[in-house]
């Protein structure tokens, strides 16, 4: 049974007041809050087990290593990787994409090749590919979207050619909420001989992801959008690809043997984890995934759909509100503009009413350009949000209209 009060009680931060009002945290697409179990796991690690990993023979180092590698197993299990060798810890989604663009890209991309992304990508799935194209002479192509914020799949097919070496696509858009048909995209891309990277920064907390079923080549995400700590995320890569890729950064941990003449690189996944990793972060990440599994995606999806439907219905009745992003398949995001009030002003006014939303371009400026708006206001939901918080959002919007009278 889904018990929202019980879930909310697990998040200590939620029970506070902001400017004298109960906090309604509706900025989950930026980052989610952390349950007590994650906070405790990070604290316990520093209080009881802290040591460097993979290099000490003493008890603490062995415990730290076991906890860190245990987290890797949890992540692998959560995304159903073939083995833990496919689980590379990174600082987050951004670093994971840069790793692929830099390591896989430089080894596999040459002048005239094409990288195909979509119009709804986050800057972190645009800029690394632009940089790669600049360095190699490859060409960046963009799949257009329609007014609802859905990919034009016919255009995708037309843009996908034998020159396409990689398709980079966001699983769920942070600016629009659109959930893209990634399994279908992978199938079509593979048929054309292209590899696929899926940006799961938004999706992974809201939808079950099975990388083997998806058959994608790279899947990347950030722990902090999944109830885990900041500063940690993951690149899940197909082992056969990771094995052939050159290292990303050089340093400790990623080597087996160093002489001044030659260095032998370590096995997967360590080849891509140079330097002391974010051990506490990885442990917290593992705990966060256990938290999600404890609720289960059936319950999460059902609940979040309910909440989005509730908010969407209210939005439809709200005078002067234009939703941005109305895809058939969408999740957890209500992006909108309000007539006569700039999103930035909404952000400030809502904050004073205790309602935290994001106002801006959401690191997706091309999406703003498509809709010809400078910015949008975005409420984004999570498993702990309530109908009362959605009500608070709309009450605060009414207050904003009064002020701007």
């Amino acid at each position, binding site marked *: 049974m889904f018990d929202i009060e019980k879930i909310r009680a697990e998040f200590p931060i939620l029970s506070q007041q902001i400017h004298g009002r109960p906090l309604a945290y509706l900025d989950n697409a930026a980052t989610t809050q952390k349950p007590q179990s994650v906070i405790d796991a990070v604290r316990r690690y520093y209080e009881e087990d802290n040591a460097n990993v993979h290099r000490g023979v003493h008890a603490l180092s062995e415990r730290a290593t076991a906890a860190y590698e245990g987290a890797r197993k949890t992540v692998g299990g959560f995304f159903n990787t073939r083995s833990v060798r496919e689980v590379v810890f990174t600082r987050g989604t951004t670093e994971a994409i840069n790793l692929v663009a830099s390591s896989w890209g430089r080894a596999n991309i040459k002048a005239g090749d094409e990288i195909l992304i979509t119009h709804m990508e986050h800057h972190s799935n645009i800029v690394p590919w632009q940089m790669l194209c600049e360095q190699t002479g490859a060409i960046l192509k963009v799949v257009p979207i329609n007014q609802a914020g859905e990919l034009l799949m016919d255009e995708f097919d037309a843009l996908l050619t034998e020159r396409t070496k990689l398709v980079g696509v966001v699983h769920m858009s942070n600016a629009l909420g659109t959930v893209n048909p990634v399994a279908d995209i992978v199938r079509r891309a593979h048929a054309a001989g292209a590899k696929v990277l899926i940006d799961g920064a938004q999706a992974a907390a809201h939808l079950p992801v099975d990388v083997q079923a998806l058959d994608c080549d790279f899947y990347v995400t950030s722990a902090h959008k999944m109830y885990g700590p900041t500063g940690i995320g993951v690149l899940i890569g197909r082992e056969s690809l990771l094995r052939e890729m050159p290292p990303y950064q050089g340093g400790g941990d990623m080597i087996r043997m160093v002489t001044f003449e030659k260095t032998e690189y370590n096995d997967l996944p360590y080849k891509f984890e140079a330097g002391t990793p974010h051990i506490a972060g990885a442990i917290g990440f593992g705990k966060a995934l256990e938290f999600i599994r404890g609720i289960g995606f059936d319950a999460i999806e059902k609940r979040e759909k309910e909440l989005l439907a509730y908010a969407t219905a209210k939005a439809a009745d709200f005078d002067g509100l234009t939703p941005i992003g109305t895809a058939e398949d969408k999740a957890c995001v209500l992006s909108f503009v309000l007539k006569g*009030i*700039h999103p930035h*002003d909404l952000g*400030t006014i809502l904050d*004073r009413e205790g309602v935290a939303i994001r*106002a801006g371009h959401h690191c997706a*400026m091309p999406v703003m350009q498509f809709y010809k708006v*400078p910015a949008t206001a975005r409420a984004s939901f999570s498993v702990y949000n309530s109908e009362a918080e959605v009500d608070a959002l709309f009450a605060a919007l009414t207050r904003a209209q009064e*002020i*701007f009278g």
Partner: protein
Amino acid sequence: MFDLRDLYQQVIVDHNKRPRNFGKLTEFNHDADGYNPLCGDKLHIYLQVSDAGVIENVSFEGEGCAISVASASLMTDALKGKTMQQCEEMFGQFQHMATSDLAEAPDEEVLGKLTVLAGVREFPSRIKCATLCWHTLHAALKDSAEPAKTE
């Protein structure tokens, strides 16, 4: 408690709705772009300055939040007929007002109507919205080719 009305005073709401001196001047001898990368606000300021260094006419174009539009609107109203030196003094006083302690009263004598923007100091994330137009003015007076930035 601090009220939203202290930030969104009626004057500000009005200037946002009906910005004064909005549009491109037919005759101008200085202009510059201003950009706030944080929120994407964009401004362009046009100035007609006499040989004696007096601002004869000034206007702005662009899009932004109520604070940045109202601030630009109020600024352009206040600048007309002022010397460059007076502009500098106003800029200094305005910046001081936007970042000073709440207890400190703004300099009404220099700032006049612009004191309605004093409320921003209670909203640290919004101070740059109010000062963008002033940075842009500065760039225009110097004929800077680089857009003025608040960051």
